[in-house]
């Protein structure tokens, strides 16, 4: 089965202000996506917008793959208007995935905003075993909070405006958690996805505490398969492509 195929929209429903859950049925035999991998979708038939949009695999259900997306610009606005039955060109699953923690390590999963989409498969995978840190701008931007609560051993919440959980960034919450003498350090691994400054903060915190952290990076993409060299981030071994060598990197690999 080729990783380039037509997917059919099963459902495309708002889950929150400005966020939709998209369910796509994909051809049989398509490779199953791993946590941290992503797909690219062609949202137009014409040449404007031209490039595919990248979305992390959020869940795999019997109906197909689910993507959770934030309406951000023109491409996602077009996607929002698409209805059941519409057919989209799709590329994926792409990229590497979040590595498994060694048996004895506890997964700490951190998400900022729509970053929840990327780490959600981990939350499901480590059901009942992981501690989840989830930050968003406001209460209304917290998606899938109840699901995350059910699936995690413990869920920490923060919002920029304090409308839910503690006020401030979720990195600060992680930091206090790790600073707590009862923390399971160094017996944990961090998995994080969110805006660049948040990931940088997480990386610093992890380093300070001697904890291994994996971060999922974002960059503008054209090909999605490592051919154009457009989506690079600076790493200790030079520029690496987010689409192929990433999106998940060890935080110490990144030159922040």
């Amino acid at each position, binding site marked *: 089965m*080729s*990783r*380039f195929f037509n997917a059919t929209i099963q459902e495309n429903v708002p889950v929150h202000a400005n966020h939709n859950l998209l369910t796509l049925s994909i051809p049989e035999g398509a490779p199953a996506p791993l946590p941290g991998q992503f797909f690219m979708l*062609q949202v137009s038939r*014409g*040449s*404007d*917008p*031209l*490039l*595919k949009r990248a979305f992390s695999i959020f869940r795999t259900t019997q109906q197909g793959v689910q993507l959770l997306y934030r309406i951000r610009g023109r491409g996602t606005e077009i996607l929002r208007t698409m209805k059941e039955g519409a057919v989209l*060109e799709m*590329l994926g699953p792409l990229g590497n995935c979040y590595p498994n923690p060694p048996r004895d390590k506890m997964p700490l999963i951190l998400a900022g905003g729509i970053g929840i989409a990327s780490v959600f498969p981990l939350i499901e995978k480590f059901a009942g075993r992981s501690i989840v840190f989830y930050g968003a701008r406001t209460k209304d931007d917290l998606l899938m909070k109840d699901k995350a609560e059910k699936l995690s051993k413990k869920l920490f919440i923060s919002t920029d405006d304090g409308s839910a959980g503690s006020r401030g960034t979720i990195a600060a919450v992680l930091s206090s958690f790790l600073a707590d003498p009862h923390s399971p350090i160094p017996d944990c691994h961090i998995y994080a996805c969110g805006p660049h400054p948040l990931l940088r903060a997480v990386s610093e915190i992890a380093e300070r505490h001697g904890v291994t952290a994996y971060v999922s990076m974002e*960059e*503008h*993409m*054209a*090909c*999605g*398969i*490592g*051919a*154009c*060299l*457009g*989506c*690079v*981030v*600076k790493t200790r071994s*030079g*520029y690496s492509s987010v689409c192929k060598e990433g999106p998940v990197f060890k935080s110490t690999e990144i030159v922040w």
Partner: protein
Amino acid sequence: MDIAVRIGSLELKNPVMTASGTFGYGEEYAEFMDLNKLGAVVVKGLSLTPKEGNPPPRIVETASGMLNAIGLQNIGIERFIQEKIPFLRTYDTKVIVNFFGDSVAEYVAAAERLSCEEGIHGLEMNISCPNKQKGWCIFGTDPRVAAEVVSAVRKATRLPLIVKLSPNVTDIALMARVAVDAGADALSAINTLTGMAIDIRTKRPKLANRTGGLSGPAIKPVALRMIYEIFSAVKVPIIGMGGIMNADDAIEFILAGSSAVAVGTANFINPLAASEILEGITAYMKTEKIDNIAHLTGVAHET
């Protein structure tokens, strides 16, 4: 139906190639398309030593196009020869290596090194890059500098030499003549148009490099016009490119004067683009009852 085309001494089984920098080193697309179907694979631009490239962001989408400022990141000729040629040699397609240098000496050294390897069938010289010796000037926009570097490379290689022209010039026909007079066996055109995009929130250029190269459907009309002008100016084969998304586009380029076409940005939109374009060209020839692709080249010039 005869769809083979000659590019200097090089015979391609069909006119569809890939555009440098949009097809990696070939292997990235092998999963999607049978590379044996291609007339030629043109690989990412190489330099004598590896290049790190520009800091990100390197890509911006624009209306029907994209800007890229990759900064010619590449693994260098030695690693290419070690790691990529063996894979490409397993395919029955021609391998054309796109290359560049910072100086005339580097161009020459690169051409010499590439010319003594099996499995490389042709060289494509990218002259749209900054000339370190002369500060801000670009090799491909100054006729004298272009003549100098092409002549020097011509002496350094016996491989078919394709010179890839920059479209950022007043007179593309002049640049074409200069390249041919200096020894080019063929020309490819066009490289990207220099462009820019600005983020109105940060008030800064969106690309870290500030400017980038515009490619995709947006530039097709400019590319076609340039092919048309080059065809009138020189006798050597032209490899046409710039916004080719489908077979109809490719046929326009052939009618304007191209002997072969290269598929660039389209690979990102549809990883099967190149092979679908080939199928479309042959379907068109059938409908139009044209038995030799050469009979299509430049037909738009007849009145």
